[in-house]
C-alpha cells in the first residue's frame, strides 16, 4: 500500500492547504510583494503563488494562493476580507478570499493509497454510447460555462462604467461646491457676503 513517506507528504500538504487562502478579483497589476504587504497585517505571509491562466480568456481577474503561517491566521484573513471591503492596489472593487481547495494547487502530491484505473471501452459495450454522449455533454457544458463567463465579464464592465460615471459626476459636484469658496476671496460666496455685509471665516 501507500508508503509512509507518501502519507507524510500528503498530510503535510493538507496542513499547508489549511493555512492557505485563495484570493481572487485581483487586478493583473498586483504582484507578489503587493499581496505580501497587504496581508502581512493579518499575520505572516509565507508564500504567494499566482495561479497561471493557460486556457481561460485573458480578461479574467488574477487569482492567487497565499500561504499564511498557521490556519488561525488564514482564518483571520478570511474573516477580515469578508467583513470589510478590502482593496488591493486599486478601488473600489474589493478582493475576495476563499478557503483553498485541493484542485487549486499545482504541486499537490499524489493521494496516498489511491490507484487510478482506466480502460478503453469496447464498442460493443452498452456503455460505449453513453460514454460518447457524456463526451458531447462535456463540450456542451464547457460552451455554457464560457457563455456565462462572458456574461459575467460584461456585467462587471457595465458596473465599472456606471461607477465611473457616478464618480465623475460626484467629483464635478464637489468641484462646484469647492469653487464657491475660493481662497482668493473672489468666489461667489465672498461676493454674496460682501453684498449682504456678512463675514466669512476663512481658515
Amino acid at each position: 500500500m501507500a508508503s509512509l513517506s507518501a502519507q507524510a507528504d500528503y498530510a503535510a500538504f493538507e496542513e499547508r492547504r489549511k493555512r492557505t487562502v485563495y484570493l481572487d478579483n485581483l487586478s493583473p497589476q498586483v504582484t507578489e510583494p503587493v499581496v505580501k504587504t497587504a496581508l502581512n497585517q493579518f499575520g505572516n505571509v509565507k508564500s504567494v503563488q499566482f495561479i497561471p491562466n493557460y486556457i481561460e480568456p485573458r480578461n479574467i481577474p488574477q487569482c492567487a494562493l497565499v500561504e499564511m503561517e498557521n490556519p488561525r491566521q488564514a482564518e483571520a484573513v478570511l474573516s477580515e476580507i469578508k467583513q470589510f471591503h478590502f482593496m488591493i492596489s486599486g478601488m473600489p472593487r474589493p478582493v475576495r478570499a476563499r478557503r483553498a481547495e485541493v484542485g487549486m494547487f499545482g504541486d499537490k502530491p499524489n493521494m496516498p493509497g489511491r490507484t487510478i484505473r482506466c480502460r478503453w471501452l469496447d464498442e460493443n459495450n452498452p456503455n460505449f454510447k453513453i460514454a460518447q454522449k457524456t463526451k458531447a455533454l462535456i463540450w456542451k457544458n464547457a460552451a455554457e460555462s464560457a457563455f456565462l463567463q462572458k456574461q459575467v465579464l460584461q456585467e462587471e464592465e457595465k458596473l465599472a462604467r456606471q461607477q465611473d460615471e457616478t464618480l465623475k459626476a460626484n467629483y464635478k459636484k464637489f468641484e462646484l461646491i469647492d469653487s464657491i469658496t475660493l481662497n482668493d476671496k473672489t468666489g461667489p460666496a465672498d461676493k454674496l457676503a460682501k453684498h449682504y455685509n456678512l463675514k466669512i471665516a476663512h481658515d
Partner: protein
Amino acid sequence: MSHLQVKKVEDNMKFKWGRKKGVSQTDERIQFYESFTYEDVEYFVYDCAYIYCKGDTETSICKLVKMFETPTHVKRVKVVRFRRPIEIREILGNHNPQWNELFLASGQGVGRQDYISPVEVIVGKCNVVCTSKDERNPHASKTELKWADYFFYRTVDVEKCVISEKFNDEIAGIKVEYFFNKRKDPKLISPSNLKRNIKMEAGRSVLSSKIGLVEKGGSAVNADKSGNGVSPVLLESKRAMTSMGENRCMSNENSTLRLKATINKDGTEPGQISFRQDQDKAKVRSSDSLLPMNESDTRPDKRRKLLLDGQKKVPKKGEDIDGKAGNASDKMVPELAGNRGAKTHAQFLEVTRRPDADRSTWFKKLPWDQRLQTAEEMGTLVLLDNLDPSYTSLEVEDLVWHAFNRRVEAKMIQQGTFSHPHYGKALVIFKSKDAAEAAISKLQSECLILEDGRPVAGCKGTLTQQGEPAKFFGHLVLDVHKCQRQCDEKRKAVSTSHSAQPNTIEYDFAMEWRCLQEWTDICWRLLFEAQAKEMQELRSQLKSTEINELT
C-alpha cells in the same frame, strides 16, 4: 432518407448542375446529369463524398452513382454507402480493420432506398482508394494511397452480414468497375504520345521531375530509376508547374497540389500532375461544419502517414522535433479493435508508475510556460478534459502512459474562479505532432473511461493569447488635471491596501461590487448544479452495467 420539401433560395444559389447525361428510360421527365457544383466544389458521378444526415453521430462516406432531377425539380443523388468499421463492428469478428479502412456495401437491397438530396447533406469530397487485388481494379499507386482519405478492399453484404474480398459484377445495379479506381486515360501512356512528350518536354521535364523529387521524397516519380533517364511528366496545365515551386513548402500544410503517378511496365514512369483545389476545401468544410461530436473528421491530416508503412517518410513540418517522429507513426497505427483494447477488454487497467519515470534529466528544461508555447506552435499540445480534479500532474502522465503508451509531460490546470468544480483539466505535451493527433482522434472515436465511469475527453490545446495586458474592470482612477501630485499619490496607492471605510463613496461602490460578486456566484452555482445533474443522469444509466462488469 431526408426529404427536401422546402428548398432554401440560398442553397439553390450555391447549387448548379453540370453537363446533362440523358433522360430516364421509364420517365422522360427525369433528367440525369454527369456532375453538379455545390458550394464551389464540383462532384462528378462516381465521386466519393462525405454526407451528414441529421441525427447521425458521424458523417458517412458514400459513392455518388446517379445524379438526377425529378419532374418536380427535386434534386436527387443515388448513393452507395461505405460502412465504417465501427458501424459493422458486430460482424467484424476476427477482422481487424485499420482505422481508415472502409467496407463497400453490397448485396441485395443496397442503394434501393439510398437517395439523398445533395443540398442538404453533402459535406465535402472524400478521396477513397480501392486496394483490392481484383484484376478488374486498376492498381492504386503509392502516391494515390498516400493522398487517400480512406481505402477499401472488402465488401460487406448488408443483408447476409458477410465480409468478403470478392466483388460482385454489379452493386446496386451499377457495374462494379465504377467502384474500383478510375482507369487512367489510356492516351496519356500510349507510346506515340509518350515519345512526343519526351521530345516536347524533355527540357522541362528534367526540371519538373527534380521538383517532383524534392517534393515527394521517396515517392513514385523518380527520374533515376526510370529506363530513359528522363521521366516524362505531363503537365495538365502550365499553372500547375509554375505553382509547384511556390507550393513546395506549402505542401506540408495540406497543400492544394495533388500528385498522381502511373507506373508503366517498361520502366518509364510518366507522372501526371493535376491541380486540385476542391480537395482541401472539402476537408476544411467537413470539419468545420460539423458538430463537436464529429470532430473525428479532422483525422484526414494523418491518413497519409498511416498508409506509408514501408515507404519513406515525407519530411513534415513539426514532425521531427525530437527525431522520434519517424518511428512514432509506425508504432502507433491506431486500430479500432486494437490489441490494447482486447487485452483490457474485461477489466480496468490499473495505472501504475510508468517505468523509468524518475530517471534523472541531464538537461535543464525550459520553464513550463515556454514549453507550452512551443508545444502549441508545434501542435503537440493536447487538452484533456473530464479528469478527476484531484488528480495530480504525475498521475495524468501515468494515465497517458497506460492509455496511449506514450511518454508525455502533463500538468493539471489549477482550478480558479471560473473552473468547473467537477471537471479536471490537464495540458499534455506529446513528443510529436503525430502522437498528439493520434491520441486526440483515439479519444474522440473511442472511449477511455476512468474507474468511476468518467470518459476522458481530449482536444487540441490552445493557450490564452499573450500580448497586451489584460483588462480589469472595477479599479477607478480620476483623471484630474493636477497630474503631478496625483501621480505621486497613485504610485503610493498602488502598493498599498486598505479596507474601505463606511460612509464613503468607495464603500458604496464596494458594496455594489460585492452584490455583483454574490450574483455571479449564484449564477455559477446554478449552472454547475444543473450541469452536474445532467451528468449524473447520464452516469446513472451507465452505472448498472458498469458495476456488473466490475464485480
